[in-house]
């Protein structure tokens, strides 16, 4: 079964992240590398992507003539997706365990970030991974 693990955060968390210390960045990066490697080694990894900084996020709606209207203004509380992993596992329990691992990634001061990771199943009926 395929699951998507999503890491999102409001703008102020992104801004705090940008102010981490050098050791914080390096520790977190090392953790994430090891995490991804473990997913690959265990045959669980399907895909993972990071997204660009949310300052360039836009919401698009279509006008009545079909032309897109873009808007870059979001509420303070808006959670911006930072990145995701798609994993292929036996069942939801395994997905939750993996999500818990990445949730514990070290954050500021090396303490576990405890970031909430949203877990959803990917529906194959509506999917075209294009691979």
């Amino acid at each position, binding site marked *: 079964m395929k699951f998507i693990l999503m890491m999102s955060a409001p703008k102020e968390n992104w801004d705090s992240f940008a102010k981490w210390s050098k050791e914080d960045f390096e520790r977190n990066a090392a953790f994430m590398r090891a995490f991804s490697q473990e997913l690959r080694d265990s045959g669980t990894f399907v895909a993972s992507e990071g997204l660009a900084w949310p300052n360039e996020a836009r919401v698009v*709606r279509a006008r009545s003539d079909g032309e897109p209207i873009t808007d870059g203004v979001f509420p303070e509380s808006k959670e911006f997706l930072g990145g995701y992993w798609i994993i292929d596992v036996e069942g939801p329990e395994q997905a939750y365990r993996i999500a*818990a691992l990445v949730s514990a990634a070290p954050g500021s001061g090396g303490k576990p970030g405890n970031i909430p990771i*949203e877990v959803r199943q990917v529906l194959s009926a509506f*999917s075209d991974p294009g691979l």
Partner: protein
Amino acid sequence: MKYILLMTGTRGGVDTYRAWSKQDIDSHMAALQSLNKELKNSGEFVATQGLAGPDEAKLIRGEKNGAPVTDGVFPESKEFLLGYWIVDVANPERAYAIAGRISTAPGPGGVPTNMPIEVRRFAEHAPRES
């Protein structure tokens, strides 16, 4: 340039969608399939995924001992990701235009849903020479 186009909805929005007539749902899906075909034709298609409904969403945190703490309670207003498109386009305007197309997919009675599509650029793993 790779972009991800995010289709989101609140739980209420999804419940409303589930109450559409079969015909309306089929038209909606057909419009999106048609867009996918166009994107494959134009060489811009990378991937699309649909996600299970918000009722199945879980929020996971790692407990101190590593055990997952699951939480299925979200605020009513939470926007859930319903699905996304990944496209490889020449410039941001093209990404917005494609998002606009998704936004015009028809809803009940054939009226465009006009739903908001969030557009985010992908980060690349490659260093760029300075």
